[in-house]
Every structure is written in C-alpha cells, then in structure tokens.
C-alpha cells in the first residue's frame, strides 16, 4: 500500500486549497498570501483562529484540535515559502486617494500621532521578524476588511491591541486609500521580512 509523503507540504494540503500550494494566496479577495510572513505572526494567527481570537468558522473548525507544537510547524513551513508575487492590481480609486494611501503608508500622519505602516511593517513592507506581517501581495478588499475587523474588535490580538488603536483613528476614506495603494504595489525584489527594530508604539503580539 502506498504511503503519504512524509512532508509538511502533504500535511497542509488542507491549507493549500484556499491559500495556494506554497501559500501564495489565490485570486479570491479573502484568502490571503501566507508565504514569507514571519513565522511568529502566522503562529499567532493560527492560535487566534483555534482559540477564537479571530472569527472565521472555516478556519476555526479546521484548527480546533491541533496542538501548539504543530501549529508552530505549520507557521514555519509557510514562513519559509518564497513563491512569486502576483502582478499588482490596477487601482480602483482616483489618483488623489492613491496619493493619500501612499502618504499614510510611508509617512503616517504625524500631526495625529499616527505612525506610518512602514514604521512597523518594514520599509519594503515585507513585515518585520518575528511577528509583524508583510502587506504586499494582498488584495485591497482583504486589507480593508482586516482594518475594519481591528477597528470593530472582531479581530483580537494580545493587549495592547495597537492595530485597534490605529484603525480606530483612520477614516473610512483613509482605509480605502491605504488598501488601494498597498494592493497596487509590485512584489518586492527581496521578500525577506525586516530584522527586529524599535517600534513606535506598544503591540501586545510583538515581544518588545
């Protein structure tokens, strides 16, 4: 009798159905890219889906009876993947909105004490080790949905929930702008997440 391959890739076929064979994501807006995101970030998300910090029943169901050690292996597997990025999406917003998005992502809004996305997610927006995700290669609708979920408290993190604070201070138009500009960026030449460095605010899911 033939045996299943003794590999992580064979074990995570259940993930590949929505997130792609190498975690590259699919053209579905709500199945994000996993590949190359720092393992600590992916592990935190797997725990949150298993224990209810993030609510999405198909994920909550799949992970319900998987132990921490195995979720860590799954996280490390996808963190190591380096599939190519999809071509960037053509923006569906006007030039002024796109410019606003670029401004907020790269500079933030210092007058409102809002840090730039790049301050934590890396200058190349490929994330920061050990636990801050990359923002490139995601669909605009996915990004805006996550910002909304942080704002309304349906996506929880360890306290302090820095993304709740930030998203609560963004207007709807700003969220649209950030999501549109991020989704329009081409894949980075170097997808490696940035090395850990000082963060402008305290985030419970990132050990400081």
């Amino acid at each position: 009798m033939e045996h299943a391959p003794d590999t992580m890739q064979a074990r995570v076929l259940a993930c590949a159905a929505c997130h792609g064979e190498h975690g590259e994501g699919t053209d579905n807006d709500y199945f994000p890219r996993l590949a190359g995101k720092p393992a600590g970030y992916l592990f935190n998300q797997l725990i949150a889906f298993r224990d209810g910090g993030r609510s999405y029943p198909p994920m909550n169901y799949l992970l319900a009876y998987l132990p921490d050690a195995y979720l860590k292996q799954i996280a490390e597997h996808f963190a190591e993947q380096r599939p190519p990025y999809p071509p960037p999406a053509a923006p569906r917003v006007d030039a002024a909105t796109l410019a606003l998005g670029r401004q907020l992502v790269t500079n933030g809004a210092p007058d409102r004490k809002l840090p730039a996305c790049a301050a934590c997610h890396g200058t190349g927006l490929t994330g920061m080790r050990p636990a801050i995700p990359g923002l490139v290669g995601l669909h605009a609708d996915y990004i805006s949905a996550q910002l909304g979920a942080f704002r309304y408290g349906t996506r929880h993190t360890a306290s302090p929930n820095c993304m709740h604070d930030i998203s609560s201070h963004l207007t709807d138009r700003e969220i649209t702008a950030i999501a549109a500009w991020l989704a329009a960026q081409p894949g980075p030449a170097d997808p490696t997440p940035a090395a850990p460095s000082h963060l402008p605010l305290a985030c419970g899911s990132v050990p400081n």
Partner: protein
Amino acid sequence: MRKLRSLIPFVPLVFAALCTAPVRAQTESPPAPATGSHAELIAKGEYLARAGDCIACHTIPAGKLFGGGRAMETPFGTLYTPNISSDKATGIGAWSADEFYRMLHEGKSRDGTLLYPAMPFASYTKVTRADSDAIYAFLQSTQPIHQVNREHTLRFPYNQRSLLIGWRTLYFRQGEFQPSPTQSVEWNRGAYLVLGLGHCTMCHTSINALGGTSLSKEFQGGLIPMQNWYAPSLTSNREAGLGDWSIEDITGLLRAGISKRGAVYGPMAEVVFDSFQHLTDDDVRAVAVYLKSLPGKASEVDTSPRSTYTTEEAARLAPLGGKIYAAQCAICHATGGQGKPPAFPPLANNQSIQMNSAVNPIRMVLNGGYPPGTHLNPAPYGMPPFAQLLSDAEIAAVVTYIRTAWGNHGTPVSEREVNALRSAPLF
C-alpha cells in the same frame, strides 16, 4: 461564538408536562472508604474526569479550566454550562462529596434542581461512589475560577424545569453499573467506561420523537441534532457498524485519531483530543473489547433518512463525479479509493461513506477537516475544504461517485442536500 456539542432532548418536554409521576425513591451507596494518599485520589480523579470528558463542555476553548460558560445551542434556546471549578461562590467549591455524587447519580443540583439532560447524568448515574469521590477531589483541587454562571436562554415552555420530571420518568434509569459475572474483567471495565463516564450513547444512539433513547436501538447510531453530523453505529453489524474492525483498528482510532480504516472527524475529533488520547492502553482496549461484543442484530437496519435523489439527477451527475474525483481526490485517496492509510483514509469499503445518511461525506467534502493532533499522531494530515471551489452539483456528483464506486453500496445524493449542509454549523 463556538457552537457546541449539541444537546439533545428538548422536544420531550412538552409531552413530559403531561406526565407527573414522581421521581422514584433513591437509594444511595455509602461513601467509599479512603484508600491511598489524597494526591493519588486527585490523580485518579483527574484521569476519570478525562474519561468523562468534563473539560469539553465545562471549559471555553482557551478559557479558564472548568470555569464553564460554554454555550450549548439547541432548537429551544441556548444552555450555558456551569462553573465546576473549586470556587466556593460560583463553582462547586462549597459542595460536599455527597452532593456531588447525588448530582452525578440522580441528575440533581446541590439545591435539588433537576438538571437538563444535556448533562449526561443518565450515563453518569452508572459511575461508582469511589470514582465520583475521586472526581470530586480532583475538581476541588483545581484553580478556583470566580465566574458567575450564565442564565440559560431557553424559550417558554422549555425553561420550565418541572417538565423534566416527565422526561426522567420515561428515560432515566438511576443506578450504578453492575458488573456482569459471566464476562471478563476487561469487558466489564469497557462496559463501565462506555455506558458510564464515556456517555457514548449521547451521540451514538438515535433520539426518538420524545427526545429519549431506546434500549433496543442502543449504539445503532444516529444524527446528532443541531450539529448535523451522523454518529455511526458501534455494533457489530457488518453493514453499518464496526463489523470486521479489529480491536487494533478501534484502539488505534480512539488513541491516535487515525487508523487504517478511517480517521475521526467532526465531534469525535474533540472526544479523541480531550478524552481518549489521555486514557491508558488497557482502558482503551477494554472499550474496544466491549464495543466488539455488542451484537450485530440481524434486525438492525440503518434507519436514518436515505439520501434523496432522482434517477434523472443521478444519471446526470454520475459522469461528472468520476471526473472530479480524478482531478481533485485521487492524488490522495488513490484511483481505486484505497487511500494511503493512515494519513489519507480509504474511501472504498469505508462504512462512514456508505451509510443511509450522506451527511458525513458531504460535510467532509464541503468543509474538509483535520483529525485531532494527538500524542500518537502529533502532526496530522488534513482534508482540504471544497465549499469554495466546487458547486452544489459538483459536490453532489463527487459524493455520489465515492458512495457508489469500487463496490461501495451507498446511494446517490442530490444538489439540494449539499446546499442544505452549506449552512450547517461549523463550530
């Protein structure tokens, strides 16, 4: 919110209102004399609490151990499990061992309130006084969790506990397990675990119109209300039950969550994760020995509703099913349906695929699933979900294919059945 192991019998309550027979007089066995150290007693109690799977209902996932508060959804409203930690004010810290035994044995709370049969006291009544005392000692040793019990939100008239008197008269037979002198020690241990702490009958015996279970149909399987999973027969019936499963197949499945014959999924994944993987080899083997002894009655028929289909629909879907199987399934489950066990279970000659009810195979194709990660299988292989990829017609076609190919004797399924299960509670 997490959708819970569902509960059973609220239909009966209206009927039960007509029945006002008093609860029978009780006889209580005296407390067992203490043996061994208190630490040993607590360890024994912890083990028995695993066998009874108390944690599954009395702890919110990732919540405080035995703090209760888990929502149990029923067609009649929502029950919230109580705090059973050692907290004196909100848990059971102020209870005596006698009161705890009465609760398990008679289905009455400390103040005499009748418990809803969501609490499996109809099984726990078989637990010995000594084992009850050990579980009591263990629970009293747990961290006190100060968390006030949440009120149930059952609708009228289901919120009238007096209705439970009738249900108890019809379906509750109080009494500790009585070993059979004609059976082996191992068989009796297995029977004690299955019929008592294991409360297997809560899912594996079908519920009748009054919400009770019939002894004549014990362990012949049934649809689990609300959850929409079908708990298969555990008898030795070849068609529906454990038939030609070996003791090793059964113990492997219960301890590891996987076996050469199939994997656990749905609600049983939780039972293996929380309970069976923690039990000793001897106890799991005793369970298997007892289950294998359940007679496969010639009269046992799979009484679950058959999958529905029309000949026209089946004929239309049949060729499509083979194509989808080749494209999506054969890579793991093999062209001949033999799978690559134990990682990728066989589909040919797999009872859970061929039962009258097609609920389980449809849900597995829709939602996929991981067997539990256990000590013996810490990194399980997962079945992908296909709800996002395949249409109702495509899923009906491929499920029809696996139920009828390779000598499988299931019946075709319809698009309508697939569509109805897309909204089944996942969690």
